């Protein structure tokens, strides 16, 4: 690779995210794809993200520069604002050359949508903190969330284009008064993986959950459902958590109370490629998302559903509008009512009892991804949005 040196000023594109990158979370996969497309279109650029741990504060790869915010500010709002200011400082040297700034959240957007800019702003809405933070931070007052909502509206109004990964999130953005013409649907995608070797420590027969462990993921529902499958000898539940082990404490306690702890295997922060292998050899992949405001009003675009289909595994997921956009009941797996452990257990049991039909669902899921849910397709759609807002793209 060619290594370029110099002052670092003069990027035409910047991608800003209040997320650690790289990491084992789904958001990192998404950021890698979107930022790569942006930087390919604009001959490099600045990626401004969260760092910490062993990640270097700055990195330069050819024409691409990565800058990581790693100041330890414990309070989330303080941290978000400190990040916002840091972003402002990092966009400043590129003010005269910047053509597109792609942001993922209001605190990244705020410095990008400032007055007097010449660049275009693309706001990628994967979620709305004003809705989601009510779940992660239950002590946040309605008045506080209303302020965050005002902040979101301000940034959305001032952005030149809004990209959403699902129609449900698109509808949530429209409720802010954002005109339809400004909202572009760019679904999440997956790469269809080649044959993956069975993980050496994989149990004989297992169902798998992949993802983070926030309450809306419905791990508690899955645990209760799994307790109902105790009669299936040798069946294990593998949880590939994208977050550190200590985050699993409440779910593990629940598993112990339900008497299933010895049948659950935990893996934490596995690299993306290893997760693909765990998916590929599972009997069923489960996405037990709860029917809460975060999943219903705000919407979501669960990468785990797409990646499971790409791996050729039948999916049992909650029947939510955002999930229905990705898969169909009885075709790629089963959709079950959210928050119903008995229904979830029954759907898993049926798939286990009809392995041929389950395998056919897995195959159809993979075909569905190959046909319309690849990252290549998502990136082509994103490139189209860049062309719309910054015609000088070359």
């Amino acid at each position, binding site marked *: 690779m060619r290594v370029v*040196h110099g002052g670092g000023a003069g990027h035409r594109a910047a991608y800003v995210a209040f997320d650690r990158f790289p990491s084992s979370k789904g958001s990192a996969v998404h950021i*890698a794809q979107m930022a790569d497309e942006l930087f390919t279109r604009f001959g490099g650029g600045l990626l401004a993200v969260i760092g910490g741990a062993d990640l270097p504060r700055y990195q330069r790869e050819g024409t691409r520069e990565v800058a990581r915010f790693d100041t330890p500010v414990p309070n989330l709002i303080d941290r978000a604002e400190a990040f916002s200011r840091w972003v402002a400082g990092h966009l400043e040297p590129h003010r005269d050359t910047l053509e597109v700034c792609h942001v993922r959240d209001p605190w990244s957007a705020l410095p990008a949508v400032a007055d007097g800019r010449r660049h275009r702003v693309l706001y990628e809405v994967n979620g709305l903190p004003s809705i989601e933070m009510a779940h992660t931070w239950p002590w946040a007052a309605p008045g506080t969330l209303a302020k965050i909502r005002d902040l979101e509206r301000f940034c959305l109004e001032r952005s030149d284009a809004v990209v959403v990964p699902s129609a449900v999130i698109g509808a949530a953005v429209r409720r802010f008064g954002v005109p339809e013409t400004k909202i572009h649907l760019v679904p999440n995608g997956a790469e269809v993986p080649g044959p993956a070797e069975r993980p050496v420590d994989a149990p004989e027969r297992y169902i798998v959950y992949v993802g983070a462990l926030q309450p809306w993921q419905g791990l508690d529902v899955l645990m209760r459902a799994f307790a109902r499958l105790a009669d299936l000898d040798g069946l294990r539940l593998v949880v590939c958590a994208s977050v550190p082990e200590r985050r699993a404490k409440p779910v593990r306690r629940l598993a112990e109370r339900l008497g299933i702890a010895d049948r659950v295997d935990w893996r934490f922060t596995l690299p993306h490629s290893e997760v693909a292998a765990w998916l590929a050899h599972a009997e069923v992949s489960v996405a037990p998302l709860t029917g809460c405001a975060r999943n219903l009003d705000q919407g979501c675009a669960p990468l785990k559903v797409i990646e499971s289909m790409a791996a050729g595994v039948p999916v049992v997921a909650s029947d939510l509008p955002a999930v229905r956009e990705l898969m169909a009941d009885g075709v790629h797996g089963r959709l079950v009512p959210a928050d119903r452990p008995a229904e979830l257990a029954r759907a898993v049991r049926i798939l286990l009892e009809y392995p041929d039909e389950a395998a056919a669902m897995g195959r159809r899921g993979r075909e569905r991804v190959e046909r319309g849910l690849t990252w290549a397709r998502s990136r082509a759609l994103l490139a189209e949005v860049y062309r719309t807002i910054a015609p000088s793209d070359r």
Partner: protein
Amino acid sequence: MDAAGHGGEEGPVTVTRCHVTTGFFVLGRCGQAAAASCARCVRPVCAAHAGPGGLCPECAAAQGYGTHDPHEPSWTAGYRRHYYQSSSHAYADATWYASFDEYDRGAFDPGDDYAHGGDWGPDDDTGFVDS
């Protein structure tokens, strides 16, 4: 691995490897034989990564943005105050950066394992929303 020993006629020779972090989604170390050391952080860098001025890519990139020291005791408060002033000055906007009062912020303090929000550490996820 930072150094490798190789047997030769003159006995083992230690090769110092380039320490520069490379990669985008999957990070690694460059690992080429080092040709110089960075003028600022003194880490070994190979010929491809040694830039003009003798800086490694990380220090060269950092140079364009200035630095800050988070280890000052009153840093957070000072940072925030400075932030309001400079941002409201820069963006002619005294609203957004000052709209969250102490009461609003209080809900977002990290707690212990039993508090909502949980603890917060250097290995934590930081995004507001997640897929």
